[in-house]
């Protein structure tokens, strides 16, 4: 049997490296479009300030993008290094969108990003804009394929288990691509990325306005970002991925966990604003509920029921017992007793094979599990509720906060008095971390809420790991910890340095620090930052 501490560490390693990677991805997704907008204005109006905006925000984009690529490499390696059984078991289905992502999207994005940075002098205006567009298009297309792969983990459609190859095999590529969970996830995730980039540009531009620096530059940047951000946050909220929660058992469990709804309530269910969910008692203590709200949010109707966790667990128990039978026949088939009778019996129960595998942490052969093992597996069949409950509320809270800010920003910007609303500009500055809090908690809800499954209803996380030792994992975790900490410090140092320097870092002679330097006949050490080379 696999070592449980090794499994725990593998999960920690994957979760932490994925969340870390996801610090950089959303900004890339959104900022690339903001660059396209700015550069389009430049090409249409030929006003140099828009080229400077493209170059300056592009510089910050580059600092962020470098770490996105670095940490993305880890994700590609990690399925093989640490989730070898997963790779074998679902590579036939899951690998395809990843490989197509490389061919169709990542090549496009990565080939043109080099020309975005270094091609200013060698490309015509239109060619360069084309390059910027293809880079943005490529990165967003990348997200589509990654989320098709991820959507399949939540709701594995278009595939079937084959006992002969002992893995899931694709039955319909079209179903894989049009998976409803993947579709809503894509819209929700990229729109969240657009909000992230908008809040980033808004916060930094607000700071320039507060400092009274580079006002023309700051106001134009603010205008572009506030419009883009307003449209994006409305998409995130209105096209939220709640609609994806009705499809498949995993998504139903996730929804009930988000709500900490233990008992099935009559429709429309109440929304729990506050509470202390407890897996051991299967109860949410001190709950404060708002009637009807959950039913409306989750099902967008007043008469569709949201199933409670206890009822879902009762269903899981039935499926676990079925899964034991499926496992029994699988062993016979794999052991050479490939008779039509055994095949028929296996086919009858194979939809529940994954549930049988939930017993693996307790018993080598799930077909021989005791009543006690089954009860333990039933308890395992839902995730820990409290972290999901709270992460979801943090995400929604951050989202609502950003909606308010963006609405105010949009209003005052439209009235052309944004510069006078210093309180709002301060709020924008201090809200820069908000989108990251929202996307990280959102990602956590989606993936922690998928537990105990690596692939929903198909492959438990506990057997998806590689056959490594705890010792191996401690070494690799330490390596990631050291590298990622150092990289984070370096990235933040550069990001803050260049954000503070602002468009003066372009060395055009038109911006704040160069103007000071010009008028004072040289930089004074107190005000002048170290001259960067680029």
């Amino acid at each position, binding site marked *: 049997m696999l070592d449980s501490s090794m499994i725990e560490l593998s999960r920690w390693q994957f979760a932490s490296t994925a969340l870390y990677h996801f610090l950089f991805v959303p900004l890339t997704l959104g900022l690339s479009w903001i660059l396209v907008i700015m550069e389009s204005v430049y090409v249409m109006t030929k006003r140099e300030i828009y080229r400077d905006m493209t170059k300056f925000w592009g510089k910050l984009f580059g600092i962020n993008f*470098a770490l996105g690529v670095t940490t993305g490499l880890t994700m590609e390696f990690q399925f*093989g*290094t640490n989730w070898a059984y997963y*790779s074998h078991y679902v590579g036939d289905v899951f*690998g395809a969108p990843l490989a197509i992502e490389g061919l169709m999207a990542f090549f496009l994005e*990565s080939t043109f990003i080099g020309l975005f940075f270094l091609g200013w002098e060698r490309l015509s205006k239109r060619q360069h804009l084309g390059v910027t567009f293809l880079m943005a298009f490529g990165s967003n297309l990348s997200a589509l394929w990654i989320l098709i792969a991820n959507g399949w983990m939540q709701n594995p459609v278009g595939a079937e288990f084959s006992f002969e190859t002992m893995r899931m095999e694709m039955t319909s590529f079209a179903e894989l691509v049009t998976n409803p969970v993947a579709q809503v996830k894509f819209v929700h995730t990229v729109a969240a990325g657009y909000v992230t980039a908008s809040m980033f540009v808004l916060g930094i531009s607000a700071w320039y306005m507060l400092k009274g620096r580079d006002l023309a530059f700051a106001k134009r940047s603010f205008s572009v970002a506030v419009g883009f951000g307003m449209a994006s946050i409305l998409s995130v909220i209105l096209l939220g991925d709640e609609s994806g929660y009705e499809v498949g058992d995993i998504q139903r469990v996730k929804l009930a966990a988000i709500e900490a709804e233990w008992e099935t309530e009559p429709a429309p269910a109440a929304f729990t604003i506050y509470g202390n969910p407890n897996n051991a008692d299967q109860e949410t203590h001190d709950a404060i509920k708002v009637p009807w709200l959950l039913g409306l949010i989750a099902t967008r109707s007043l008469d569709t029921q949201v199933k409670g966790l206890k009822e879902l667990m009762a269903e899981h128990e039935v499926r676990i017992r079925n899964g034991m039978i499926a496992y029994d026949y699988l062993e016979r088939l794999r052991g050479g007793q490939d008779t039509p009778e055994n095949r028929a019996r296996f086919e009858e129960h194979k939809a529940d094979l994954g549930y049988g595998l939930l017993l693996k942490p307790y018993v080598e052969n799930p077909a021989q599990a005791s009543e006690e093992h089954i009860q333990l597996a039933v308890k395992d069949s839902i995730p820990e509720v409290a972290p999901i409950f709270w992460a979801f509320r943090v995400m929604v809270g951050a989202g609502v906060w950003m909606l308010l800010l963006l609405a105010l920003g949009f209003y005052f910007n439209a009235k052309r008095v944004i510069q006078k609303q210093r309180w709002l500009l301060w709020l924008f500055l201090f809200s820069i971390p908000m989108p990251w809090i929202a996307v990280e908690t959102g990602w956590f809800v989606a993936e922690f809420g998928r537990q105990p499954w690596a692939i929903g209803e198909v492959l438990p996380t506990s057997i998806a790991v590689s056959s490594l030792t705890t010792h191996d994992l401690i070494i690799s975790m330490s390596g990631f910890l050291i590298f990622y900490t150092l990289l984070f410090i370096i990235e933040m140092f550069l990001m803050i340095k260049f954000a503070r320097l602002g468009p003066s870092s372009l060395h055009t002679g038109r911006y704040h620090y160069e103007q000071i330097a010009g008028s004072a006949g040289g930089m004074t050490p107190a005000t002048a930052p170290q001259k960067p080379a680029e």
Partner: protein
Amino acid sequence: MLLDYETLKLIWWLLVGVLFIGFAVTDGMDMGVGTLLPFLGKTDDERRVIINTIGPHWDGNQVWLITAGGAIFAAWPLVYAAAFSGFYFAMLLALFGLFFRPVGFDYRSKIANKHWRNAWDWGLFIGGAVPALVFGIAFGNLLQGVPFHLDEFLRPFYSGSFLGLLNPFALLAGFISLGMLTLHGAIWLQLRTAEPIASRAKAVTKQIGLATIAAFALAGIWLATGIDGFRVVSEHIPNATPNPLTKEVVQESYAWLSNYGTYPLTLLFPILGFAGLGLGILGSIKDHPGWGLFASSLGLTGIIMTAGAAMFPFIMPSNTNPNSSLVVWDAVSSHLTLNVMFWAAMIFIPLILIYTTWTYAMMWRRITVEEIQAQDHLAY
């Protein structure tokens, strides 16, 4: 259109080869350039010249590696699973090496500080040399067989150690990999930089190239005489449902030579390896680095295909449990997946080649120290 399963299995062996070759010719070249960076660039400006020859392209080039990884995941899931988890620390070493590149290229010249830039230059050296070495070592181990087995549910178990990977033959293979990519990178620098870097690059092609040719010859002799290959002895059933546990495999002397005997045309691969590297050196010496680069690209192709053809149909043989070996017929994905992926590759690989060529054409010039100084704030 659905192609025949047996054909697709063979095509995917070729396509993975194409992706490896695409990686070696483009990103491998960048790794060679990274390896040479601290040695051929004496001043900061010279190092920036070297970096900027690959600055606009290294990221796109790296996607060959990423796509090769993705293609192995999708087309040979068991190979991806067994190799990446088995070679755990070697893979992490390559990965940590690769970490230095994206940040190295983008961050190095953002701060005008000697120590900062020098540190990143060595980072780019590590990011070039370490993965190049590790990938060669991995190939060297595949040729000797890897200590792993599959259980009845096809879970791979690796029973070797990290130090076991660093055996003499594998180190020789690592040296060939590093040597051929460094030669390739040196010719590129001769082509794309002005003096004095171009001359320095030219001065090293001969030593590196000849050492690599010698190592390739030595590895060939060693492989022929000192390393037992593998052979499938059970009957091959075309279009079979992939199951790596049903075949019978033996390990025996000279088995890696049998393909060359059966299909003499495959002898063109080692010939191409030697001739490509040789003509690469010649092109460099005779001041035709453009032809040299073309020849060395063919040389890399020949060397990669030499290893592939020797092992065919094996991808990852097991020396502790030969029947668990993974071959192109039984470690593959389903018929449908191979077909979908085949068409994706047929559509997108030509497109990639077209727009990649366009980007090279747009950025094509000899880069000089003067240009770097003039574009201090724009260049890497």
